């Protein structure tokens, strides 16, 4: 990480932001499923014990209970690992939350393979797909701690169901401050370039910036776009990038099918067919290992992104 050395925890930022919101808004209620120390909702529990409910290892019950609370006007945050609140409780999210458009904010931590040593059962690689397919659901994957805070505040202030995906690992800080104009559904051009656009989300934005930094030295100009909101996606920006740079790389810590790359491919196929390469997990389960080892083995490093850029430019 040569151009962005400082790191911070997105999940810790989430926990602290909940406290910040809880102080101002008495309607905020938080539910967790026995992982409050990991998801950092424990910060909220400590500050507002009456508005915190630990539902135990019962994610389906947690989601539907959150829905019931939300029918009375509460803004309900529910947290656990990404695998459990999306896959395990998917029908509850669909029927109890998305269908009735209830004000439930599902904020997961431990998204992607960087969950690491716990292995396949704890690595969410299909959660974005599972959530974005649901009508009424907004899906956000923040790129760093600063964006996490803004996304959580935006989710609390908006009405309706949200899915926000965070990581286990500390994530490089990409923004100098929170004045960069975060808006749900609006992508951020992190750096301009003319040869190719790398569209990324979550931890892959830092990887994309590293790749762009390295490629610049080799005379390749990469635009890097952070699509923090997977749904509703910033269609205009994606089409504009395709038109202006002609080639698109997508990068995500998720199955290649059904995630960010899929959404970008769908938009471009219908509006502006463009040569593209999607980087992600290629239809396989991963395994236990250190986060960095896993990123390398499964092709999600900045050098994998740089290779894809060279490939698409035939260099």
């Amino acid at each position, binding site marked *: 990480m040569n151009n962005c050395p400082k790191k911070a925890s997105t999940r810790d930022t989430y926990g602290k932001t909940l406290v910040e919101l809880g102080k101002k808004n008495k309607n905020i209620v938080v539910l967790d499923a026995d992982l409050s120390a990991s998801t950092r909702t424990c910060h909220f529990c400590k500050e507002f014990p009456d508005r915190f409910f630990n539902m135990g290892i019962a994610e*389906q019950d947690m989601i*539907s209970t959150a*829905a019931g609370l939300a029918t009375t006007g509460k803004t309900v945050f529910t947290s656990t690992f990404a695998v459990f609140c999306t896959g395990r409780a998917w029908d509850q999210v669909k029927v109890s939350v998305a269908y009735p458009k209830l004000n439930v904010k599902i904020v997961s931590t431990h998204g992607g393979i960087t969950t690491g040593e716990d292995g396949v059962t704890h690595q969410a690689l299909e959660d974005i797909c599972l959530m974005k397919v649901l009508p009424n659901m907004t899906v956000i994957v923040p790129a760093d701690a600063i964006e996490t805070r803004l996304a959580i505040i935006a989710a609390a202030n908006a009405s309706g169901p949200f899915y926000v995906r965070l990581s286990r690992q500390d994530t490089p800080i990409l923004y100098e401050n929170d004045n960069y104009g975060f808006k749900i559904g609006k992508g951020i051009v992190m750096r301009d370039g003319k040869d190719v656009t790398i569209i990324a989300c979550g931890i892959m934005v830092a990887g994309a910036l590293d790749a762009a930094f390295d490629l610049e030295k080799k005379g390749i100009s990469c635009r890097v776009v952070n699509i923090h909101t997977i749904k509703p996606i910033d269609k205009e920006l994606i089409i504009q990038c395709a038109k202006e740079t002609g080639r698109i790389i997508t990068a995500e810590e998720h199955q290649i099918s059904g995630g960010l790359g899929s959404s970008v491919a769908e938009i471009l196929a219908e509006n502006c067919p463009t040569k593209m390469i999607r980087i992600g997990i290629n239809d396989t389960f991963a395994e236990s290992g250190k986060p960095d080892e896993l990123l390398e083995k499964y092709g999600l490093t900045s050098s994998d992104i740089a290779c894809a850029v060279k490939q698409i430019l035939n260099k």
Partner: protein
Amino acid sequence: MNTEKIKEFEKKAKVIRKHIVEMIGCAASGHPGGSLSAADIITILYFYKMKYDPKNPAMPDRDRFVLSKGHAAPGLYAALAEAGFFPKSYLKTLRQIGSSLQGHPDMLSLPGIEMSTGSLGQGLSAANGMALAARLDGLKYKVYCLIGDGESQSGQIWEAAMTASHFKIDNLIAILDHNKLQIDGSLNEIKALHPVVDKWKSFGWNVIEIDGHNISSIIKAFDQADHTNGKPTIIIADTVKGKGVSFMEGNIAFHGKAPNKDELSKALSEIGHCNE
């Protein structure tokens, strides 16, 4: 409760049953068996027990009813129409395209529906959430949740059962419509629920057992539940699937099958005159 009042409720239950079979007959689709078994319970909830205002369906301190066994929607729709949430003539649109009377309840489409249900097992958790909100808001309302016995085979019911007793949710009253039949056969054949009373007691609930078609027993049970502190109550209502229509009673064929024209007129004549 005097006998005259009881008779009035019995008559109301007949009206609800009449609507149920008519709606389902008209739609040529729906679930008569489990709607009819719950008709007396729903009648007492909407016309004796619950506090609500059809002119102000969002009144914050209203009592809430969650139909966790969402396929009994015709019974709920009939009660809402009789209570004045929408015109009774609208009942004929059940399950038709463009209607608010969805096959299973949709809380966004119709006033008076407290929760969207239909995928079994989820309603009791949602009812817990509503009941906890009353505690947070310092309101006195109660939440009533009707679950099915087949539905009780789903694990989430028992997750919710643990939640309610753990958080001492005593403004929640669940009612088990124990009609002992499910689509593929009897519960005892498919997956038995017994000993059902012991199960709920061991989960920390106050358990009241009643004949789910005896109006005065239903009334007494709901009133008794008001005096329970520190734990949730479940009323285990012994019911007959298809109750009120002889050829539907205890007949699994009518779990999810509409009566044809002849069956409908036979059913209506059996339910009898009920002075709407």
